[in-house]
């Protein structure tokens, strides 16, 4: 029952494409035969009730599931025509090109500067590191707040600042795609607002896939939305359609808050 969700990507080239993707944790199947296309330079939101497999699906996109004990993946994820799960693909390289921001801010217990510089450093970055750090912090809308405390511990920043630092850290690696797993769920409304504004700006240069529990947030920031339910992709399309005129009844009852 392969349901291929051919969507109108509005002329955007595909940045990432999942084909018949299934994920198993031991016997339990957490993602069931999902196929979808992520258009480049768009924000795609993954929505659905808790435990429906959003994080699992997201982690497939940069092979973070490799690190989960007992996870098994079937199907393909195409990135520039290459299946990320081919045996000759190096997961480390994949993660350098497809970055990830996590639910809880998780800066390293180091200075602000060292956090932003970590990614470039481990890749043997040769250019001007100071410039790159500044550029990344600016891109994450954090520079003005931290420019005079670059050598302070990242733990002295507020939660929202820490999360933007984590975004900056990811941007410093210059990925093409940024995956975000509920990046604002641990933050207050003002910090959330900042992250949302930021995502809107980042879209110019990056493709963004974001998991969110917050329907208003999904409606505000995403161009496309995918509704998952119990591991299945129920509906996928332009966010407007998903929120105002969904085809599936289950989608409608979820986005209107009747369950989940």
């Amino acid at each position, binding site marked *: 029952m392969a349901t291929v969700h051919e969507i109108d990507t509005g002329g955007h080239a595909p940045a990432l494409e999942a084909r018949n993707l299934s994920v198993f944790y031991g016997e339990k199947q957490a993602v069931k035969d999902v196929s979808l296309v992520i258009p480049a330079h768009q924000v795609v939101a993954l929505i659905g009730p808790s435990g429906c497999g959003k994080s699992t699906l997201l982690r497939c996109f940069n092979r973070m599931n490799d690190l*989960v004990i007992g996870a098994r993946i079937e199907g393909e994820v195409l990135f520039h025509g290459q299946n990320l799960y081919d045996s000759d693909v190096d997961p*480390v390289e994949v993660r*350098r090109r497809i970055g990830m921001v996590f639910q809880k801010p*998780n800066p390293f*217990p180091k200075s602000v500067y060292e956090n932003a510089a970590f*990614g470039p450093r*481990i890749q043997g970055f040769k250019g001007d590191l100071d410039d790159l750090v500044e550029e990344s912090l600016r891109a994450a809308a954090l520079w003005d707040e931290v420019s005079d405390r670059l050598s302070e511990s990242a733990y002295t920043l507020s939660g929202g600042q820490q999360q933007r630092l984590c975004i900056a850290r990811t941007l410093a690696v210059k990925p093409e795609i940024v995956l975000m797993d509920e990046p604002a769920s641990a933050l207050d409304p003002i910090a959330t607002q900042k992250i949302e504004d930021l995502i809107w700006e980042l879209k110019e240069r990056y493709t963004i896939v974001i998991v969110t529990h917050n329907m208003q947030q999904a409606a505000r920031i995403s161009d496309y939305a995918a509704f998952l339910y119990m591991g299945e992709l129920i509906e996928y399309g332009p966010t407007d359609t998903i929120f105002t005129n969904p085809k599936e009844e289950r989608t409608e009852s979820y986005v209107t808050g009747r369950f989940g």
Partner: protein
Amino acid sequence: MAESVRSGGRSRRRSGEKSLDEREPLDLRPRGPQHAEITALAREAVDETGAEEPREPPIRLGAQTTLGERRRRTLGLAFHVLCAGAAMVGVLSLVVLLGQVLHDGLGQIDRDFLTSFASRIPERAGIKAALVGSLWMLALTAVIAFPLSVGAAIYLEEYAPKSWITTTIQTNIANLAGVPSIVYGILGLALFVRAMGLGRSLLSGALTLSLLILPVIILASQEAIRAVPDSIRQAAYGLGATRWQAVRLQVLPMALPGILTGTILALSRAVGETAPLIMIGALSFVAFTPQGPLDQFTVLPLQIFNWVSRPQEEFRQLAAGAILVLLAMLLAMNGVAIFLRNRYQRRH
């Protein structure tokens, strides 16, 4: 919920855990038949008066003190006193021991004591050979045991697949930590002194002591590595770090204070060891300092053992002096360990 992204070792999924909103609200009201009755009465009363909320019954502490309860309290008090007494035994014996040693030994310690070799004449005897031997032993053991243990701990925590082999290794390390030290002496004698032909050298001794403290350092290091939050590993991998980069640049630096604390405590145990060194045939009367790892040696505990086993009172006092030096060394090492631990706790 908690996603368990793990680089190796165990999966730390807390499956039974409910998220906050799933949990039932805490009910702090007293329960029990009596309470139910009161509530029922209150509800009736409320029904009559038409008030909205039944009022909570007042909680009367102590009103119900029965014989059983009084006995429970007495027992509790007795247990408290017993435990405090047990703790005092430890403290008191340490005080007595220290007092005795200080009384006997303090007068012994002067420059000559530290810079003279052992001698048949008590006035001329010193601990130079033993002190230098102990320092050699300490350094060699650290150099051998530290990389081996930390390597093993990193492998077990970050690399090893979850298999029965890993479990077996893990169990055996825990078991090894409980093997009596004399057994390691026998092993050292057979393996290092005889089979490998290293003789009764510092190196044989250090290898033996390394084996002895290996499991202790491995376990402490594993503990420290495990305490590094998974989110740090995820962050590193998410930025395209290889496993080794994640371990070397993020996990190890965070675990290092814990690892060092464990190592220092284990080393201080090694410095105080006597039995395995007697077993491998270390000398107890040495009038030279070792020049290299293959030289023969003595260490402070052996020198002390030698002196206390002599009949003359003067040698007993020399032993007390040597004990003081050894104690100072051990306390200094433990002090460093405690300092590291405190600093580490303050930072996280």
